[in-house]
C-alpha cells in the first residue's frame, strides 16, 4: 500500500495503541513518538524507573514493528535480510543490533516453530523489513507485517516472573525460561507470544497478543502488577534503563 505524501500531510494521521484510552485514564502524558501516541510517563519517570529496578513496570510497546515469516524456507528468507545473524532454534531468540544499518535500531528474531519466525523490531524498521522480506525466489515462503494486529506490553523488573505466574501457566523462571527465550501460551486466558529480552541484568518479558484484547489485558496486567508492587511505566523510564 502506498500513501501519497500529500494526502498524508493533509490529514496528519495519528496512531494509537489499543491501550491508549487506558493510559489517558491513568493520567499518562501522551507524546507523539515514531508516529504513535505513546505514554512518556504516568506522573514521574524517576519513580517509574525505581519501580522497574526494584519491583516491576509494565510498558506499552505496541508500536514495535512485527513481522511473521512462514514456510519451509523461512530461514533462508530471514537470512537474506539478516546475513550476519545466526537463525535461532525453536523457542530461542537472536537480537540483531543496528538492524537495517541504523544505529540504535534492533530486531529480535524469534523462532516459534520450524517454519515460523517472528521478527520484532524498532518501530521505524517496518518499510525496510517489508522490502527485505519480499519473497521473489519462487519458493513457498510468506511474510506479513502484523504490527497492527498485535498489541505489546513489556513486563520488566525483578518481580516480572512473579506477575507472569499470576496470569499464565508458562514457567518463566530463570531456569526454565532464560534470557532470549520465546514461547506461545495463554496469558490471562488469551493467546499470547512471550519473548524474554533482558535489559542488562533486569528481567524483561515482551508479551504480544491480539490487539482487540488490549484494554482487557492491560487491566489484567495492572491488577497483577499492583499485587507485585509494580506499576505502569512510560517510555522515559524504559529509556533510562536501556541507557
Amino acid at each position: 500500500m502506498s500513501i501519497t505524501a500529500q494526502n498524508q500531510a493533509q490529514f496528519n494521521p495519528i496512531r494509537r495503541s489499543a491501550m491508549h484510552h487506558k493510559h489517558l485514564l491513568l493520567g499518562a502524558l501522551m507524546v507523539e513518538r515514531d508516529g504513535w501516541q505513546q505514554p512518556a510517563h504516568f506522573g514521574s519517570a524517576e519513580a517509574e524507573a525505581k519501580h522497574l529496578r526494584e519491583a516491576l513496570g509494565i510498558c506499552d510497546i505496541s508500536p514495535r514493528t512485527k513481522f511473521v515469516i512462514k514456510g519451509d524456507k523461512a530461514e533462508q528468507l530471514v537470512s537474506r535480510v539478516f546475513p550476519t545473524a545466526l537463525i535461532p532454534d525453536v523457542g530461542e531468540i537472536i537480537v540483531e543490533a543496528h538492524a537495517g544499518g541504523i544505529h540504535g535500531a534492533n530486531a529480535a528474531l524469534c523462532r516459534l516453530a520450524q517454519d515460523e519466525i517472528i521478527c520484532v523490531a524498532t518501530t521505524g524498521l517496518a518499510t525496510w523489513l517489508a522490502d527485505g522480506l519480499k519473497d521473489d525466489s519462487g519458493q513457498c515462503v510468506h511474510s506479513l507485517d502484523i504490527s497492527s494486529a498485535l498489541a505489546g506490553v513489556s513486563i520488566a523488573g525483578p518481580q516480572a516472573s512473579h506477575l507472569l505466574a499470576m496470569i499464565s501457566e508458562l514457567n518463566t523462571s530463570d531456569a526454565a525460561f532464560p534470557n532470549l527465550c520465546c514461547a506461545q501460551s495463554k496469558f490471562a486466558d488469551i493467546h499470547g507470544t512471550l519473548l524474554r529480552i533482558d535489559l542488562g541484568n533486569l528481567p524483561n518479558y515482551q508479551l504480544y497478543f491480539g490487539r482487540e484484547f488490549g484494554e482487557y489485558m492491560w487491566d489484567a496486567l495492572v491488577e497483577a502488577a499492583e499485587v507485585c508492587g509494580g506499576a505502569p511505566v512510560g517510555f522515559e523510564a524504559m529509556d533510562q534503563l536501556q541507557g
Partner: protein
Amino acid sequence: MAGDSHNQRLKPQPTELIDRNKSLEFQFDGRRVNAHQGDTVASALHAAGVAILSRGFKYHRPRGFLCGAGRCPNCLVNVDGVPNVRACTQQVRQAMNVRHQNAWPSLNLDFLSVLDRLQWLMPVGFYYKAFHRPKFLWGLAQRVIRRVGGLGSVDIDADPVTTYRHRYHHSDVAVVGGGPAGLAAALGAAEQGVGVTLIDDQPELGGHLLFNSKDFSGLPDLADGSGPEVASKLIQRVIESANIEVISGATVFAQYQDNLLTILHGDELVKVRAKSVVLATGTYEVPLQFQNNDLPGIMLTTAAQRLIHLYGVKPGNTVVVATVNDQAYQAALDLLNAGVEVAAVVDVRPTYSHGLEAATTLISRGVPLLTGHAITHATGKKRVRAVVVASVSPRSPDSPARRITCNLVCMAGGFQPANALLQHAGGSLDYDEKSGEGIPHDLPNGVYVAGEVTGVHDLATALLQGRLAGLEAARLVSGPGSNQEEIGRVRQRLNGLETEPGIIPSSPVSAPPVEAPTESRGKKNFVCFCEDVTVKDISQAIEEGFEDIQMLKRYSTATMGPCQGKMCLKALVGLCAQQTGRTIGDTGGTTARPPVQPVPLAALAGPSHMPVKRTPLDQNHRDLGASMVDLGPWQRAHSYGSPQEECLAVRQRVGIIDVTTLGKLEVTGRDAGALLDKVYTHHFSNLRVGRIRYGLLCSDNGTIMDDGTVTKLAEDRYFVTTTTGNVDLIEEWFNWWQAGTGSCAHVTNVTSAYAAVNVAGPRARDTLTKLTDVDLSAQSFRYMRSAQGAVAGVPAILLRIGFVGETGWEIHVPAEYGQHVWETIMEAGREFGIAPFGLEAQRILRLEKMHVIVGQDTDAASNPLDSGMDWVVRFDKEDFIGREGLKLASEQGPRNKLVGFIMQNWHVPEDGVPVVSGGKPIGKVTSARFSPTMNKGFGLAWVPAELAQDGTQISVLVNGVPQPAQVALQPFYDPEGELLRQ
C-alpha cells in the same frame, strides 16, 4: 467471653502455637471473646467455655468441637460475612465478627431443633418418597427444606469480603503433607539438588508430632526425643535447605493429570505443576458409633491433644476415653497431665498391646482401663454429662452396663488414610485386613506415597518411607542412575525395619467397627455428621436394597457433605460390610473426586478475567452515547439512540458503521486460488485482481458453515472476510484442507490488524471523495470491485459492497489508525448529515435487502439451495467441499425454503416465532423487524417449499395469535440492486 468464668486456658505448654503476650478480641454472635495471637476461633471459644459451635444439618442438634483439624462440619461458622469457615483452622484476627449458621434464633435456643423429634418424617432418602403428593406439596416442601436444612448462606448484596488471586507455580518435586514422612521426603529430594515445594494444610509443619508427647527412639538419622523435639529437628533441616519452598496453611484440594495440584492458600489459589509428587497426606482419625455420639464435649482424641499441646486449652474436666487402638492411651495420659480427670479408658479390644507404656502409667495413676468394653450411649442435652459403658462380645450378665459421669468424651475410632489425592491421580487402593485400612496398591507414574497414608503407623518406618519417596521422586527429575546407591541403602534399611518384630504395631490401629447399638427415641447414633445420617438410616437403606456402596452413598447421602467422607467413610463401609455379610475388601469404597476440601466458588473463579474484545473505535462509540452489546466476546454498538432514525440516515443521507469485528484472513501463495476453489462453492482462482466475489462455505454434507467476501488484492494474495464469530474456525478449516497437500498457500488471521468501517448511503461518495485520491465514481469504481489507496492519509483497502443495500464502501485501515479515520470521516460527512449506525439498524437494513446472516437465518441443517443461495453453488466445478451433499440435496429437492415475508397488519413478530397453519407450526421466523422504509413488520422465515411463492398468504404467531403475512421472494428494498450500482 471477656472475663468469662469458664476459662479453660492451661498454663503455658512447651509446644503451644499461641503467643500469650499478644491478646486479641473478637465477636461471637455479638459477644466479646478473648484470644491470643495464634489461636483459632474454635480454640479461643473452647478456652472461653463455649461448647456449642453449630447445629446439625438436618435435625438441628447442638454440635461442638470434633476433629480440630479442619476436616469435620461441626465448627462451620460465618466469619466477617464469609459462610462455612471452619472455626478450628481459622486463626483469630483482631475484631473479627464470627456468627453461627443454621440455627434460629440462637445456637443455644434453636426452635428448629424440634426436627430432632420428627425423624419419622424424614427417613433415609425421604426426598424420593415423601412430600410428593399432592403435587403442590413438593414445591412447598422444597422451599421449607432448603430453608431449615443446610449450611451457611451467602449474602449476595454484600461486597465481596475476599477477592482471590490465582498463581501458577512450577516445581521439580511437590510434597503434600508436612508430617514426618513429608518432611523426610522433602529433605530426601532436596538433597539431590532438585527444587522441592512442600505443601501442608496446617499452620505449622510437623503433623501429629507437634502434639505427640510420646518419646521416640531408634529413629533413622535422628536423636531420640519426644514428638515435638523430633519435629523441631526435621523442620530446622527443611528451613535450612535452599532447595525447599514451604507453603503452610495451604489445602491441596485436587490433583489432576500430569501432576497438577490445586491449592487454596489464604486468598490465593495456587496451581502447582510438578514433575513428580510425593503424597504424605497421613490419615484422619475417625469417630466411634454410639447413641448421641454427636453431643458437644465428644471429640476425637487428636482434637483434645491439639487443644492441649497447640493452644494450651483444657478440653474438659472429666473425660472418658473410648478407643479401638493403643494410640488413645497416650492421649489419655496427655489429658491426665493437663489436669483432666480420666474417669476411664474404654477399649473395645480384649486387651491393649503388650508392654504399652502409657497403659502402665495410667494404671499406676489409678485410671480404670475397661478393655472389652464400649460406650453404648451418651447423655446430656447441650453437652455430654455421662456415658453408659457395657461389655462387648460376649455380653455377660456378670458385667452390667455402668454409667460414668463426665463432660468430655475422647474417641479413637481408628484412622482412615487420606488417599483422596491419590485417587484423583489415578491410584488404586487395596483393603489391608492387618491395619484395617485401604492402602495404596497401584501408583500412577510420577506419584509416590509415604507415611501413614500407606497404612504405616510407625515413625521410623514413616521417616524411611518418606526419604525413599523423596529420593525416587528426585530421580524421576534428574534421570535414571542418579542417587541409585542411596535409594538402595534406604530400601535395605526399610526392609530391615519392616521385618523387625514390634516395629509395625501388632494390633490394628484401625479395628473394624463393633456392632453399633440400636437407636432409641431421641438417641441418634451418627455415621455422617455432615448430612445427619445415622446407623439406622444406613440399615434401612441397605434393607431397601441399596447394598452397593456407591448406591448406598448416593441414596443415604453419607460421605457427600462438607467432610467428603473424612469422618464417616470408614464407618459407612464397615456397616455396609457388616449388614451385607461381605468383607470390607469386597464391599469396596466410594470414589474420591475433587475437591478434597470445600473451596469457595470465588477462589475457583479468581480475578475477573473475562476476555473482552474491543474494536479500535470502541471509545468513539461510547463518546457518541452508543448502547453497547456483547456479540460473542466483542463489544459492539447496538445503536446510538434510535435504530429507526439511523436506518433513515443511511437510506436518505449517509451512515457509518464499525465493522471491525468481521473476520479477516489473508490467503497468499501461488496456490491460494486453488485452496479457495476447494473450500468455497464458487470459483475464485479465476477472480481478477481488484474484483470481489461473495463466498459461501459448506461443510462436507453441504450445509452452510459461513459466508463472506473474497477480494483478490494481487495475483497471489486474497483478502477474505468471514462472519464475526467464525474466523478462528474458518482459519482452522482452511489450514486443515491445505495441510499435507504440498501446495503453496498460507492463511493468516488478520482480523486484529484492521479497523473497518462501512460508509453507505446516497451521500457516501460525496463524503469519501473528500478524503481519498481513489476515483470513486460509478464508472471507475464499480460494484463488487476493490482498490487500495489512501483514505484520510492512511493506507486502506476499499471494497465496494452493499450489505445494507446502498452505495457504499467497506474501508479497512491499519487498526492503530482506526480512530483517526472514523473521526475524519465523521467530520467530512458532517455537511451531508452523516450519522453513525449500530448493529440494530444494520440488521433492519440488510433484512430489507433479504441479505442472510449465517447462524441467524440459517442453522446447522440449512443448505444454500434451500436458503435461496443456489446462485452461489457451482456444480460445474470439479470438486469443492460439500459438493456431493449438495448434489444429493439438489436431486431430492427442498422440503423447506427461506423466504421473505411482509406483515399484512401493524404487528411485528419476534425472531424465532413459528409460522402456523391450522394452529400447528409449519415453519419459523428467523429475523423480523419493523421497516421504517415500508412502515410495516417484515422479515425472513422458513416455510414449506410449496408455500415459497411470491404472494402466498401465511400466518405468523404474534403474542400467541396468528397474524396474516405475505410471502415475498424479491428484496423489499431496491429489488433490482440499482442503488448498489449507482
